[in-house]
């Protein structure tokens, strides 16, 4: 109950597909999705494995609440060793694909080896087969998803696929499902490309059972009664995450021009209000509507319509309504690159979706390239004649086309900011933690976020901890370690349950445990969930230590540690990681070198 109790294992080298029972003890200890995927990866792979080797595994995992009637219960995760960071990664997506996999009867899908030829996997409840993808290789996500649906003669099939970004092994390539949602971060799409796996089509009609339906629905209703009328839901539904841009700009934590500045003068042209303001050309707005994932009562997703007069929108596929601007993509293409051209930013987002590359990493790597260009470390000879100055919207759109399809200087950008800046002699200019590019929060004013970036097991991430409200209220190092540690443990649970992390701002683990205990076997308590979250986070940490990472990787670029913010609430300040990190290690029960002590490992049964 909750869990389906089955795993589908696909060996791409041999072309074999087998069904096996879910390890119930591991489910009891690691819950599902992120936690369970991490346990399987840890048990089945050498942490030192090369990410693009056939020996690396790619795990698609649902949680016990995925596919149930729990609000926002449509999430799945992709767990693998990441090619951007060399650390374990877990990339989370919504849409409808995850719930469909669960309703096909599978908790998890483990892909191993490497197919000798491009293939896609077709799952129809308990039947699965590998089918040649020769005709789809070299095609975009936007081409392959409708083509597979047409071939299978079923428009209700759900498809997760890679575009030319994943095929080209762009180190931050995404897996895109349902056309508009993505397991975007850390290069999970490149690992899929390395295995010659183009897509996974799923049809599931079996439903998901829960242990105690009446109690489960009562818990779902009680949680909705908290979420639905909340101001947080109002804001996400009306303006999406995009609303965050005004907040970070006012506060002085909006990364601008590769974090040289913390406030951007062009915000009003690209913020959440700009996309609902009728444009002069056709009287319509950039934002058309919002869109919800499976089981979601928020609907934060944005659907956009490009300005028809924008020259890049001349091709028909760009005239259609497609995934629109959210905070992270708008920050990364906009302020981070010094660009305030709404059409160029929207187009860049369309291209990232079309060929499956991570918007955050692309934008932040582009910003690093722009700074390298402005200091003369790279020239037009390197870029194929493109002037990569900050603010050059044409450079952004040209480079996204090249990066998403693995061409020209885009190949260099596709390596990510860390490798790009190392190659051109200025490693300090990469705004990364553990090799993954920064999301849209400057850490000098938001010191909790600085600690969260530094200690995230998948590299810089704004969704592995939740220090937002405290950071916006207190510019200090005091108390941040505890907030980050506690919220990391909570998010580990939420990610492993199959729920979205957004309502967790309103829900405590008491709200979540009520659903898990009603859905799943075993006696689940809030205390047990807290320990499960801590166990999952420490297992990821242990994997990374075995992979060769150390406490020295829990750091931030020198710009965050030594250069003071020029304006805003953090003016004159640096991140203060030297204060928060030792305190954090102590709270975690780790040594001064950042290694979990034996006592900690024993306490967590690791």
């Amino acid at each position: 109950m909750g869990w389906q109790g089955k795993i589908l294992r696909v060996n791409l080298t041999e072309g074999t597909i087998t069904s096996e029972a879910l390890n119930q003890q591991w489910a009891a200890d690691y819950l599902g999705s992120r936690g369970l995927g991490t346990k399987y990866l840890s048990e089945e792979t050498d942490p030192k494995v090369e990410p693009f080797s056939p020996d690396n595994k790619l795990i698609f995992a649902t949680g016990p609440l995925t596919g149930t009637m729990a609000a926002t219960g449509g999430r799945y995760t992709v767990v693998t060793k990441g090619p951007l960071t060399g650390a374990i990664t877990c990339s989370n997506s919504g849409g409808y694909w995850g719930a469909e996999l669960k309703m096909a009867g599978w908790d998890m899908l483990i892909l191993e080896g490497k197919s000798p030829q491009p293939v896609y996997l077709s799952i129809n409840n308990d039947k699965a087969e590998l089918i040649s993808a020769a005709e789809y290789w070299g095609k975009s996500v936007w081409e392959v998803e409708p083509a597979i649906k047409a071939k299978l003669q079923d428009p209700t099939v759900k498809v997760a696929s890679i575009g030319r970004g994943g095929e080209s092994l762009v180190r931050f390539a995404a897996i895109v499902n349902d056309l508009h949602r993505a397991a975007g971060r850390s290069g999970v799409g490149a690992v899929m490309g390395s295995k010659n796996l183009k897509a996974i089509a799923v049809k599931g009609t079996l439903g998901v059972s829960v242990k105690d339906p009446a109690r489960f629905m009562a818990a779902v209703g009680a949680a909705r009664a908290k979420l639905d009328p909340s101001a947080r839901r109002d804001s996400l539904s009306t303006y999406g995450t995009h609303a965050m841009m005004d907040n970070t700009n006012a506060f002085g934590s909006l990364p601008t021009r590769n974090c040289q500045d913390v406030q951007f003068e062009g915000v009003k042209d690209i913020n959440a209000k700009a996309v609902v303001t009728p444009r002069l050309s056709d009287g319509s707005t950039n934002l058309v509507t919002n869109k919800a994932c499976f089981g979601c009562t928020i609907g934060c997703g944005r659907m956009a319509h490009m300005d028809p007069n924008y020259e890049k929108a001349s091709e028909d596929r760009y005239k259609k309504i497609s995934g629109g601007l959210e905070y992270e993509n708008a920050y990364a293409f906009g302020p981070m690159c010094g660009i305030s051209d709404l059409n160029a930013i929207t187009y860049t987002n369309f291209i990232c979706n079309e060929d499956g590359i991570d918007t955050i990493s692309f934008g932040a790597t582009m910003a690093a390239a722009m700074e390298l260009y402005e200091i003369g470390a790279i020239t037009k000879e390197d870029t194929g004649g493109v002037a990569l100055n900050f603010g050059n919207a044409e450079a952004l759109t040209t480079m996204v086309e090249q990066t998403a399809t693995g061409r020209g200087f885009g190949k260099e950008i596709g390596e990510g900011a860390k490798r790009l800046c190392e190659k051109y002699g200025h490693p300090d200019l990469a705004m990364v933690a553990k090799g993954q590019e920064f999301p849209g929060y400057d850490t000098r004013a938001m010191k909790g976020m600085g600690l969260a970036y530094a200690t995230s097991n998948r590299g810089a991430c704004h969704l592995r901890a939740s220090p937002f409200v405290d950071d916006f209220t207190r510019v200090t190092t005091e108390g941040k370690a505890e907030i980050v540690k506690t919220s990391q443990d909570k998010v580990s649970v939420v990610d492993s349950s199959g729920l979205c992390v957004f309502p967790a701002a309103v829900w405590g683990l008491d709200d979540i445990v009520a659903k898990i205990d009603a859905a799943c076997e075993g006696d689940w308590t809030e205390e047990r969930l807290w320990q499960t979250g801590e166990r999952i986070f420490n297992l990821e940490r242990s994997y990374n230590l075995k992979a060769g990472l150390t406490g020295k990787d829990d750091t931030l670029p020198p710009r965050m540690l030594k250069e003071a913010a020029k304006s805003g609430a953090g003016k004159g300040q640096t991140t203060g990681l030297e204060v928060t990190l030792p305190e954090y290690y102590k709270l975690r029960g780790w040594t001064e070198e950042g290694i979990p002590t034996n006592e900690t490992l024993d306490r967590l049964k690791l």
Partner: protein
Amino acid sequence: MKLKLELFGAHSEKLPRDEGEIEFPDETVPGKIVDWLELKDGDQFVILINGHPVSLEDRYKVKLTEGDLITVFPPMEGG
């Protein structure tokens, strides 16, 4: 006392359209402004005075000065 007021997010339509300075009683504190706006979950909203945050404990204590910029935005997490 005239104050400048910025309100971001789904409730921004509550502000007068001209976005100019607004007259408040001299003893006004930031918390009272949020109360006046009648925001849902207003006690959770972030308040900045001239770009600097006001803690939850201080929002009914901090004194304001003529011309201060008060920024109010809803609690948001993630992005």
